[in-house]
């Protein structure tokens, strides 16, 4: 039984790492109704920038601050030169723009910092310790705490302030939002800046786990099933989706895997997501689409 809980807890904690990536998507989806394909590149870009600054002998928090500033600048540039031109265009246009942005950001990252793999040490002890007879990873606990704090902050920011209601308005109808005096441009900047910040945090944690390298941008694909299950519009949903994916893929790998030859972990989340699409397409916490016919 202890083994079961160990797998379950390990899976839940790993799931929060997925949530961390998924939150970045949720923010931009909430504000524009678009799946931001460039989120993975932003994770890679921020992690690569941070680790390169660190390797040039810049102190940890200083490097963090500089990277954050660069992410803010990136958000400003994206809003000013891409999004502003695309107001009131269909979501597919915006999506294609994020696809393009994704390659530009990836290219820039490699142009500035090169393509080699960097190790990243955050100074967190990764030795497992025992808690009530269960082995837990300290690093996973730390990542979980970070994810929890982020979620709390973001949900306060978007539920308690008028930015929240403005966000939902913008996602629904940009022209109408402009007409009631919502500053679309400021809002989009805020959202991309926050998504950049979330990307940075995710980049550091994932970078420490996998090494900072090109494939970091592929965690986009891991976030997809999380979003489908949790719902694209809910920060809390991203957490729930991450927990479900994390726990179920690890449990499936350990308990079902041996019967069908293992390797389940890699495809199980997608199969689960597909099942969700059939039953509840908007996800657990997502807003259901309303269409009068």
């Amino acid at each position, binding site marked *: 039984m202890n083994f079961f809980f160990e797998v379950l807890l390990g899976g839940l904690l790993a799931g929060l790492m997925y949530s961390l990536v998924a939150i970045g998507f949720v923010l931009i989806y909430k504000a524009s109704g678009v799946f931001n394909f460039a989120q993975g590149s932003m994770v890679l870009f921020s992690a690569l920038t941070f680790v390169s600054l660190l390797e040039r002998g810049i102190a940890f928090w200083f490097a963090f601050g500089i990277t954050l500033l660069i992410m803010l600048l990136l958000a400003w540039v994206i809003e000013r030169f891409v999004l502003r031109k695309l107001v009131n265009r269909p979501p597919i246009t915006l999506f294609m723009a994020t696809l393009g942005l994704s390659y530009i950001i990836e290219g820039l990252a490699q142009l500035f910092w090169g393509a080699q793999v960097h190790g990243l040490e955050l100074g967190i002890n990764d030795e497992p310790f025992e808690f009530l007879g269960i082995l837990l990873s300290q690093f996973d606990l730390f990542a979980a705490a970070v994810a929890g704090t982020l979620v709390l902050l973001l949900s*306060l*920011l978007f539920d*308690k*302030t*008028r*930015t929240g*209601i*403005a966000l*939902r*308005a913008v996602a*629904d*109808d940009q*022209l*109408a*939002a*402009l*007409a*009631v*005096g*919502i*500053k*679309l441009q400021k809002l989009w900047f805020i959202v991309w800046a926050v998504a950049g910040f979330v990307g940075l945090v995710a980049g550091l944690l994932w970078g420490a786990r996998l090494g900072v390298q090109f494939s970091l941008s592929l965690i986009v694909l891991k976030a997809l099933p999380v979003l489908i299950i949790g719902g694209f519009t809910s920060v809390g949903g991203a957490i729930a989706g991450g927990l479900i994916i994390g726990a179920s893929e690890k449990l499936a790998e350990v308990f079902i895997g041996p019967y069908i030859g293992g390797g389940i972990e890699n495809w199980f989340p997608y199969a689960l997501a597909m099942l969700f699409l059939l039953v509840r397409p908007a996800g657990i916490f997502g*807003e259901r*689409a*309303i*269409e*009068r016919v």
Partner: protein
Amino acid sequence: MTGRNFLLNLEHISLSFKGVKAVTDISFGVRESEICALIGPNGAGKSSLLNIINGVYQPDKGSITFDGKTRQAMKPHHAAEQGIARTFQNIALFKGMSVLDNVLTGRNLKVKSNWIEQLFNLGRAPGDAVFQRKKAEEIIEFLSIQAWRNSIVGNLPYGLQKRVELARALAAEPTLLLLDEPMAGMNNDEKYEMSRFILDTQREFGTTIVLIEHDISVVMSLAQHVVVLDYGKKIGDGTPDEVRINPEVIDAYLGLKH
């Protein structure tokens, strides 16, 4: 006509899209607290004109004076800040949100507290929230949509959605209200009801209203001032009675016997 001042003055406004002239050299004035109707056949440039006033389109030529300030180009949120609110021809509500939340977005520019106060519910935030809610409720009551306060807007019937859109515009306490076909697709009862609300708005708040409407009988009973457009040009301008006997208008639009 009344001796009131002009709130809105359009001078020699022209706009074309890729060489197609939408609006050509149009000038007219709208006085404070009057209801001004823009009429004309489809494609006459009525909606384009409304979009120019509200800053969605920038005119190629001409200037607009609103509330004493003259300008050529402006952005929609600047228009909103100056007190111009509007509704859209194809309802543009926030469909996933409740009636109350939609009306509250109309109060967006009236919110005094900043986001830090809102985040921690400190300083001006609690009082502000109560005040905005109270103002929104007043408008909801004014338009008799209390029963649907918490309904999701996308689920409401068409006529009610039109009313919610008016409520959102009124929540901003506008000095100028632009209504793009507020009665399109309505039956006679609904049209009558909407007319009442528009007249009540004028009487209660002294709001200046510019509206586009196709139903001539509605226009004639509602408006104090009618501007007639045809192929992007102004062909008539005056009181309903003056416009009714203008031969050019009769030719182009009313199609009555000569």
